[in-house]
């Protein structure tokens, strides 16, 4: 439907969806460097069901989401005591382990990748997936648990002192974020028609962290904007084939240098779920 641009459109939608998942996880101060692995697991799970067991598309995607949620909850529980934000980078170890295991399981193709997946995914399924993910993230953003998450992100000790269960918040945010990533991975598998263990590593996951921080990790729309811009940008820079990745790196560094909170900073002047919500309550109270 978009001609030569179709794959770019679909990849943009999927990348934004994955970044929304990373955003939800990051809401409680956790950073997932296992995104690609979680998405890959979702992809493997859904693809096994559709290819080997003849499942229909939608239930397979849901299973992908559930698998993601379980893995996310597990990682959150294990890394709970690691407070330092930098140590959160430990999540990359889970991703890499999943990748190594995937390399060694013959049932899913091992190093030769899992192939022969039916081509179910198209523009509309990606768009619907993204809309659902965005809706979930947006609702979560304004929910009680969403506020609790931000409290945990800003100050774990203070949040715990006010009676917030850090474990609950972290497990829920990681599970929800990972569920979105799992579903996105399942969608991706049925578009690429292949899941390969090479694509599960942390360096792929790092891309989504870049998207998130580039756009601004404090605002949902910022994260989505970051993913959109940075997915499309390399394509727009095609004119300089050789150096486009160099330029890509330059853009990232320069934006961080001049906008240290990302494109959309913490207290946005434009629209954001948080901002308009606060404004709405204030208006209601005024009436």
């Amino acid at each position, binding site marked *: 439907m978009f001609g030569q641009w179709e794959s770019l459109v679909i990849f943009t939608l999927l990348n934004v969806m994955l970044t929304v998942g990373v955003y939800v996880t990051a809401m409680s101060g956790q950073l997932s460097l296992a995104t690609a692995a979680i998405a890959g697991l979702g992809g493997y799970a859904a693809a096994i069901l559709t290819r080997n067991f003849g499942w229909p598309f939608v239930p397979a995607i849901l299973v992908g989401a559930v698998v993601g949620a379980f893995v996310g909850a597990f990682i959150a529980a294990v890394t709970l*005591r690691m407070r330092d*934000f*930098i140590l959160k980078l430990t999540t990359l170890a889970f991703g890499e382990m999943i990748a190594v295991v995937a390399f060694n399981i013959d049932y899913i193709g091992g190093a030769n990748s899992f192939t022969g997946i039916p081509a179910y995914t198209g523009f509309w399924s990606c768009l619907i997936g993204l809309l659902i993910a965005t809706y979930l993230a947006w609702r979560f953003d304004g929910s009680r648990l969403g506020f609790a998450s931000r409290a945990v992100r800003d100050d774990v000790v203070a949040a715990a002192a006010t009676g917030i269960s850090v474990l609950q918040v972290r497990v829920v945010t990681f599970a929800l974020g990972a569920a979105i990533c799992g579903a996105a991975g399942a969608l991706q598998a049925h578009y690429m028609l292949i899941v390969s263990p090479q694509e599960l590593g*942390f360096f792929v996951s790092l891309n989504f962290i870049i998207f998130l921080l580039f756009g601004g990790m404090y605002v949902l729309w910022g994260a989505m904007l970051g993913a959109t811009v940075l997915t499309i940008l390399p394509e727009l820079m095609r004119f300089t084939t050789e150096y486009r990745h*160099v330029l890509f*790196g330059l853009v990232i560094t320069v934006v961080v240098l001049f906008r*240290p909170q*990302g494109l959309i900073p913490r207290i946005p002047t434009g629209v954001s779920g948080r901002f308009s919500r606060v404004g709405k309550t204030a208006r209601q109270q005024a009436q």
Partner: protein
Amino acid sequence: MNLFLQQLLNGVIIGSTYAVIAIGFALVFTVLRVINFAHPDIFMVGMFGGLLCAKYVSSNFFVVAAASALSAGLVGLILERAVLRPLRGRDALMTLIATLGVGIMLENGVAALISPDVVAFPPVISRQPIDLGAVSVSKPQIVNLIVSLISLAIVSYYVRLTPYGRATRAVAERPDVAAAFGVNVSRVSQVAVTLASMLAGCAAVSVGLLYGNAWAFIGLAYGIKGFICILIAGNRYFEGVMLVALALGILEALITGYLSSTYRDAIAFLLLIAVLYVRPNGLFGSYST
């Protein structure tokens, strides 16, 4: 027994290279509280600096090593001045992303300018294996080990026994107090980043000689291991980081020898999760942020 000794030796050699890279991460991390994700690519720049020198200038080992140390050190110096210093005191994650951007620039820049593929590293040192009875080593392996050990000795000497090194540890633990006692924190950071880069450059040349090739995207493989070593060890003691790196190299070599090389890469990650689960501040403790 022979296999054991051979793998032990191989492990020590690879582990010492991990240690040099890990110590680079650790130096920068302790001083600036930032993971410098450009570090693996500075390593790579050193490798190509040495390669170009060997090809066009001189194939004397010491000249090649000096060229790689200088090229990597120069990149480190610029990185500190242009990126790390302006971002000091900002969100550590944003700095991480900025350094990642620099890393992307470096690897793709080298790929575009020289080659995106694996290229041969000129044989500056003969690759003839030397038979030591029970085990055999090659000359590049010995060079690799010596270069790494000298690098580690330099770092140890610097941070333990020189006034600037002492100031480096002081900045690592309490930057404000260090500044209040006359330490120019920017200068200390600059020296730390440059030293880390120069040593990584030397290590890169010895790796290039060891395998006989160089690659614009080689940084990741070594970088991730070095990075994991500092996470496992914690940043409180530099020697702890070195120890973990050596242990990791030996473990990997033994697993390759006795089990299978496919599971080799998993051990680092398994170790990381297990250690941090039990000791969230790392094996030897960390400075809190």
